[in-house]
């Protein structure tokens, strides 16, 4: 990342002639960007150098230094301890994500193409559900899950994530389907297709990008979630809860913790790096209009 000096040859389009004089300015721009990148990557550097150390190499005085001998020992230890939790998170995330994507798609289809009286009131009331502090529903939620014997396990957590995912998935799909011209549906309706026929033959085939955005969003959110995990599924700790618990052990093995953090971060990071475009779309959808 020594881009500071490489910044000189910038192509200057003919129309933007005045920009040619801004050369020193451009050096500053690149210098600032590189500096900011370095600062943003400090934690990544720390995770990497610490997690490749063995426990006897980890000390405060050498925490910034490269490991004297690279070892995968801490990854092994972290994986041993966290693999059941990684698995729990997978069992949680897959059904919860698929479930909330399907519900969101149908809801979005109804709210964008089958406007009915009262929808203008119901939709905002639904949306408010994605902003509430979940503390304000947590106590009854625990009692309710307890009474239907879903407390303490993954099924309860799956249900909770599907239910509280309804607002955001509905919002994203509603905005996505709003772009689909109504004429397309009208043409289908003339051919005799009903509610489900229109959905299956016209709406669903063009829904792939919407599904990608929603699935990525829900996957990231549910994987990273902590409050529900720590309160309603203690018997089956998900990865975030287990990672936090790693710190509770008597001797703080920083190398194992950093390796654990790395393992917990890898799935969402991979999704982000590979499908970042869709991730950002979900991100901006959270501010309603996007």
């Amino acid at each position: 990342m020594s881009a500071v000096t490489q910044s000189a040859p910038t192509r200057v389009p003919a129309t933007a002639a005045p920009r040619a004089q801004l050369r020193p300015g451009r050096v500053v721009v690149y210098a600032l960007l590189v500096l900011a990148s370095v600062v943003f990557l400090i934690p990544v550097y720390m995770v990497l150098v610490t997690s490749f150390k063995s426990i006897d190499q980890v000390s405060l005085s050498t925490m910034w230094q490269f490991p004297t001998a690279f070892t995968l020992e801490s990854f092994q230890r972290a994986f041993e301890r966290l693999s059941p939790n990684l698995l729990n998170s997978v069992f949680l995330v897959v059904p919860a994500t698929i479930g909330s994507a399907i519900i969101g798609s149908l809801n979005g289809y109804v709210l964008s193409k089958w406007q009915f009286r009262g929808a203008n009131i119901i939709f905002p009331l639904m949306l408010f559900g994605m902003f509430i502090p979940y503390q304000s529903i947590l106590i009854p939620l625990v009692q309710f899950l307890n009474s239907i014997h879903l407390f303490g396990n993954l099924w309860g957590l799956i249900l909770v994530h599907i239910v509280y995912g309804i607002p955001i998935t509905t919002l994203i799909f509603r905005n996505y389907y709003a772009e689909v011209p109504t004429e397309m549906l009208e043409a289908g309706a003339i051919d005799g297709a009903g509610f489900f026929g229109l959905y299956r033959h016209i709406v669903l085939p063009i829904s792939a990008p919407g599904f990608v955005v929603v699935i990525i969003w829900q996957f990231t959110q549910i994987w990273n979630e902590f409050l529900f995990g720590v309160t309603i599924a203690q018997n089956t700790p998900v990865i975030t809860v287990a990672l936090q618990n790693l710190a509770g052990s008597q001797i703080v093995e920083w190398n194992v913790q950093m390796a654990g953090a790395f393992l917990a971060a890898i799935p969402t990071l991979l999704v982000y790096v590979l499908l970042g475009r869709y991730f950002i779309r979900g991100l901006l959808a959270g501010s309603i209009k996007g």
Partner: protein
Amino acid sequence: MPRINRDRLTAVLMLTPSIILVAVFVYGFIAWTGWTSLTDTTSNTLISGQSANYIGEENYAELFSRALDKRFRADLVNTVFFTMMFIIACLGVGLGLAILLDQKVKGENTFRTIFLFPMALSFVVTGVVWRWLFNPTNGINSLPTVIGLPAGTFFWHISDEKLFTFFWQDLPAIFGIILLGVVVFFALRSWAHKQSMLAALLGALALLTMAWLSFGNPSSLIAIARPEEHSFRPALLALVLAAGWQMSGYTMAMYLAGLRGVSEELREAARVDGATELGVYRHVILPLLAPITLSAMIILGHISLKIFDLVYTMGGGDNLYIDMPGMYMYMLSFRGTDVAKGAGIATIMLVMVAVVIVPYLVTQLRSEKSL
């Protein structure tokens, strides 16, 4: 067309389960929490199935005046300071990065990926990593030594320093002074706009506030007998740094989307009018970004009002210097036995978030309709 009518019914029926789920799990449970906060529910009454007693606003009265619940009031103070610093940090860094990336730089995608990747992480991962970086002896405190400066000595999230110490009893006066400032500002503005009626009214209100501040003994509004000390905890800077690292990419993405919406013609027109590159930003582009700033403030604000994971990971519930209402609620209701008081805190948190979010939702959806 009967066909369409039947389909319309199907559509409503398809939405009905979601409506019921949201009605029960969001609104029903909120009401239930609100009710719980008015009772003496403890984990014992819940487990034994005994019915709890209605005790009115007792829990709220305790939260705001009982000496033992000072922790809650300190949490509110922390929330206010943290929210302000967090929003300012994210807006500043996000806008700065967005403007830099807007300069038609090479490798824009790489830079953007670097600034945004923390958004893909869990607050728990962020907390675990920063906890290690914040260790006072050799963590980020030693970074200044890279350029030859002395190492920092700040204890970050475990610092017990205090600044701006004030008394809880001062709060009515502080709010009064803020109100006075706002009223005077609007009075002067309406006067300048020649709305003399409004100006006179506001002026009278300002005089009333001043009279109340000087003769009304504002601190008598507080029901705590002994002066109760509160302060800004610099330890919160650790939370701001970690949370800002994670979230400023988000504001950057919002601002960048906004900057991309400013047409090149508009910029060119301003340049032709003799504006410098800096002037184009100050006078043309930044005003256009104002709505984005407002949206970002509200989204960030509601995140910081309910922050929990990061506090849990970095403080574990014992570090009161960085404590927040969400954390105390969890400790009371799920680690302790005072479920009802936890419900009270949860209700207060909901009200704080609603005050920010409801007007936002209403205006967003209304402007959407007018499009």
